[in-house]
């Protein structure tokens, strides 16, 4: 294919204007001013009107404003609570072995009707690396990466160990993620 090695332009010819430097400083200041004043004006306008979208700067006032999260975002892994109020997990243990830092531990049990469920399900949030391999491994879509990323830190690591109750989230709240993984990640047309 076309395209080749090209020498860079190293021998810059500096005009007298550029060597004097004072004018170059002015040019540089003008360039930064062309950012500074529109930013200031945008920030003032957005402050007065209360509309953050007209602000020109990229930074946002977290936590009052939160950045938009893309659909693919991988937040805290959570368990899905089905419509019947029971966990969807069948305690097959695949997520346990798929997890690279081994932060999940499960004890399975049998319900009276013969279906399996996890008696305890512990996920150590201090060890989890948010890789999403558990979601990929789960055959039941019972563990998914939520869009939850706030307030996950604690001063004490033992508080970051989530048990089953802390992990279970109703299916409706996770519908966006569930729909996303069905449509884009593990869809048949991807294979």
């Amino acid at each position, binding site marked *: *294919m*076309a*395209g*080749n*090695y*090209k*020498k*860079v*332009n*190293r021998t*810059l010819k*500096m005009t007298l204007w*550029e*060597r004097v*430097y004072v004018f*170059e400083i002015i*040019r*540089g200041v003008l*360039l*930064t001013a062309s*950012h500074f004043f529109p930013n200031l004006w945008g920030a003032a306008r957005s402050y007065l009107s209360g509309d953050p979208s007209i602000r020109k700067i*990229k930074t946002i006032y977290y936590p009052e404003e939160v950045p938009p999260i*893309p*659909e*693919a*975002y*991988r937040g805290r892994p959570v368990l899905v609570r089905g419509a019947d109020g029971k966990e969807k997990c069948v305690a097959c243990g*695949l997520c346990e*072995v*798929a997890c*690279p830092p081994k932060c999940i531990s499960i004890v399975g049990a049998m319900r009276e009707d013969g279906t399996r469920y996890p008696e305890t399900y512990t996920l150590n949030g201090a060890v989890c*690396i*948010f*890789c*999403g*391999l558990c979601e*990929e*491994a789960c*055959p039941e*879509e019972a563990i998914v*990466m939520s869009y939850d990323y706030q307030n996950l830190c604690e001063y004490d690591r033992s508080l970051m160990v989530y048990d089953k109750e802390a992990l279970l989230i109703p299916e409706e709240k996770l519908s966006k993620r569930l729909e996303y*993984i*069905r449509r*884009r*990640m*593990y*869809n*048949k*047309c*991807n*294979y």
Partner: protein
Amino acid sequence: MDLHTEPLVLNMGPSHPATHGTVRFLLKMDGEKVLHCETEIGYLHRGFEKQCEAGTWTQVFPYTDRLNYNSAIQNNVAYALAVEKLLGITGQIPERSTAIRTIMCELSRMADHYTNLGASMLELGALTAFLYFVEARELTWDIIESVCGARLTSNYVRVGGLSTDLPEGFAAHVKEVFPVNRVFWSEFDKLLTKNRIFLDRMRDTGGISEENAIAYGFTGPCLRACGVEYDVRKANPYLLYDQVDFDIPVGFTGDNFDRYLVRMEEINQSMRIIEQLIDKMPGGPVNIDNPAVRNPSKEAVKGRMESMIFHFKNTIEGIQVPAGEAYVPTEGSNGEVGFYLVSSGGGKPLKCRVRPPCFALTQAMGEMVQGAFLSDIIPTFDMINLIGGECDR
């Protein structure tokens, strides 16, 4: 009268504000002149290579993100290519998958160069330029995040495919961001490239000759800055690099200014590659249709017994990779990245060795700053772009 003087031993680092990355320089100084510089690395050693032997082939992916965290996807790709070579399925990867990998590699290269150039200028005192490039990088990372769900810890590539397809509106998003990035690029260029202070600090500092660079094992922008025409993308094309049209900038003397210019131009060339590929993006699947390599789709797992068995076996025992060894060189943003893998057959790597580009660059640090001023260490070290995660592993 002759004054009796002795060289001063000076410790720079391990966490010095002007050296990004934890590295220690043991300097012997004569006034402002560096007589001898000894580089000590290893402060960020995490045992990556040993860790790889503990998990399955798939479980290595999240850890490769942590090598060069500025361009994580390039590491993912390099590792995936090596495993695919071991499996002998290099030719069977779907075209769309290869195209997406190429695009993501180039996006990572852009992000890496933005970070490197921006942070270096910050350390030379040019905070404004840094902010412009950080904003450009932010926009680039937004694209990466919308594809794989994380900025740094991408974990995007899988053996035989990708974790997910591109999101809807990806091409539009890229086309929206690139003009903005080009404005930032030209502003950065205006502020620095002809700036006298900048030139005085960059030009003719930290140079290395062509022979020495090759002898030290230099690759990437630092080697090309010396005038050597070597880029893995051209010399040994992988992915789709033989089907796109792009130039590779080459410098003259190998000093810091050449390295800067090479990196600046590479950003433009990466944009060029991405724009070409986006327009002729092939359709079709992103994953190989081979359940023994890539987990089958969830529908199949739920519906068919064989798929279910493959899914369980792949996850629990790992992909069965035949015995052998493989190495695939790829062009990382900092130089040649490659994974040398040894398999004894089975689900786990027997040995995984990374070729980190900045390791070779860092070992030449002593030579590059010998006889220079103390302040020359900063631009030199910035331009070799040591990434602790990759160098120390």
